[in-house]
């Protein structure tokens, strides 16, 4: 929708990040650290796509997306923790502090990559199913939904903080060494992870585009408008909401699984109440109800966060806070709307093709 053709932006985006950035790196202009950083932004962007599906399109304000992100992240984190030491009797230190002598049963599957991958997606899906089923079945919605999921996020967060859960407590999981035998500290591996994240982002974006472009996507919008009308039109609202909730959860988990090896740590801090609200912020700021907006929002907010905490260590909260407020106030469509306005200014596009604002 942006610019004349729908294709240009993704192509420019992809070629910039898939070709130019790596080139810049091999030319020594960009450090491997920046590459990794972008890889992490892509993970956030993936998660933001999931949120946009559930919130932007379906109107379900879910404040527990970070849980799914972290479930994926913890899955891969457990695998990485076990990979860090190859001795058979290896126990992570926090387990020995709990006086364990052998690996708890729920850690067992994470000794291998394939089960890790499967469980990393299945567990969030199952959790999303359970949460979603109970919430949607009883027709909790609107702000009730928001607050209940927030409470849920808080409970899960509190539980993960506990040491007894044998998931690392507050410290979470860290000190990863290798992934599938690749040394995570190697620049080449970091570059590889970056490319995988980029490819995943592109793939997930395509899938989301299909979803929102399909009739399914229209039903989602219809649910956002008037859930009861959808019911009277003979659609099983519960199934639709549940499906999209699970899809969003799995997308979040994928993002988490890519995020953890690049960041090197996963802690409950990633899933506190703030974390989920911030994820909503990305989407809102980027442009809710537009997939590109979600990506734009996640990347730009996190980029700003990284930059401002270094450049303005004392004042960055003002900058971000003011930006949040101004964007919400003046740009219905977030950054996307801002860019469009600029594009119209410079005559790159006509008013007509601008993305429709949400009512």
């Amino acid at each position, binding site marked *: 929708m942006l610019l004349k053709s729908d294709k240009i932006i993704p192509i420019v985006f992809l070629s910039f990040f898939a070709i130019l950035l790596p080139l810049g790196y091999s030319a020594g202009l960009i450090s491997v650290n920046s590459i990794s950083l972008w890889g992490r932004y892509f993970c956030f962007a993936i998660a933001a796509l999931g949120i946009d599906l559930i919130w932007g399109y379906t109107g379900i304000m879910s404040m527990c997306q970070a849980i799914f992100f972290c479930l994926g992240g913890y899955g891969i984190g457990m695998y990485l923790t076990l990979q860090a030491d190859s001795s058979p009797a290896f126990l992570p230190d926090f387990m020995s502090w709990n006086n364990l002598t052998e690996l708890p049963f729920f850690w067992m599957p994470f000794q291998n990559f394939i089960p890790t991958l499967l469980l990393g997606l299945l567990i969030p899906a199952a959790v999303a199913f359970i949460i979603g089923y*109970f919430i949607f079945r009883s027709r909790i919605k609107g702000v009730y939904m928001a607050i209940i999921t927030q409470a849920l996020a808080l409970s899960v967060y509190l539980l993960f903080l506990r040491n007894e859960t044998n998931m690392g407590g507050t410290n979470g999981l860290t000190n990863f060494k290798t992934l599938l035998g690749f040394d995570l500290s190697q620049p080449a591996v970091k570059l590889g992870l970056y490319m995988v994240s980029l490819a995943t982002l592109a793939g997930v974006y395509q899938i989301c585009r299909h979803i929102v472009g399909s009739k399914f996507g229209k039903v989602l919008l219809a649910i956002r408008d008037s859930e009861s009308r959808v019911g009277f039109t003979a659609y099983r609202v519960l199934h639709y909401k549940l499906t999209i909730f699970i899809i969003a959860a799995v997308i979040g988990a994928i993002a988490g699984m890519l995020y953890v090896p690049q960041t090197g740590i996963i802690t409950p801090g990633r899933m506190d109440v703030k974390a989920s609200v911030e994820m909503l912020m990305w989407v809102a700021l980027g442009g809710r109800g537009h997939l590109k907006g979600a990506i734009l929002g996640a990347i730009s907010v996190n980029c700003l966060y990284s930059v401002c905490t270094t450049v303005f260590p004392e004042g960055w909260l003002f900058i971000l806070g003011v930006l*949040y407020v101004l964007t919400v106030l003046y740009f219905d469509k977030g950054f996307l709307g801002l860019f469009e306005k600029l594009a119209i200014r410079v005559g790159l596009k006509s008013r007509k093709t601008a993305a429709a604002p949400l009512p």
Partner: protein
Amino acid sequence: MERIQNVFSGLSLASILILISLGLGIVYGLAGIINMAHGEFLMIGAYATFSVQLLFSNVFGIQSSDWFFLAALPLSFIVAGSAGLLLERLVVRRLYAKPLDSLLATWGVSLILIQLARWIFGDMTAVKLPAILSGGIYINPQLVLPYNRLFIIVLTLIIVAIVYWVLMHTRLGLQIRAVTQNRNMSACLGIDTKRVNAITFFMGSGLAGLAGCAMTLIGNVVPDMGQSYIVDSFLMVVIGGVGKIVGIIVSGLGIGISSKILEAFFEAVYGKVTILFIIMIFMQFRPKGLFPDKGRSAEE
């Protein structure tokens, strides 16, 4: 004896929760704004109290006196209320049509306010407990009812009564309730909606400030003090049934007392998690809170 202690603790926690949530309930239930910065108005109230204390001891030279607290009560209301008014004028005014966006904008505001407080006051500020409110009613070695908590319970009772009366039995209350539900039509009937919005926000934020002032009696004054209560308060507002003062009171009592009873058996974390799960199960049966609107008027 232990049971009395638990019930008293529960009542005390409940009254604090109610005091905090009342303003939130007014702003959310009546103005439709999800004010994530509500906790920060609490903080503003607490810092107002702190400033009054400084003023009394450093400028007026009234040391070791309880007068500052008496002055701080209304002042914290006014200061936080005015801050709320400012927020309404600058930000919220544009968001009445899109309530969910208000959540995001006020989130940004809360970041700003927290950092602002950190800049001005730093992280370490202490408010002295007024001498008349220290200590407590000694019943036996196991049971002492602290004056500060009794004071908060009484304060809450009074505030709740006033707020209830204003909303349900005054012209202003009627205006507030009408404007929330249908802004345009209220204007067409002759209500100055901007004024009503401003008053609503002033009241809601002012109540938060008052709660903040009361909080200095039992807790700390730090820039992010508001964050500790925000999830609980939202839960209460929602469980009670949005816009229902009685709901806030009942859910506050419910959460307060059951937390304390559970905490007596579990550790605090598990107590809290258990409460949250009970609430979620409860919502299964009452998806629209304790006191839902029934019938047609409740529909979208």
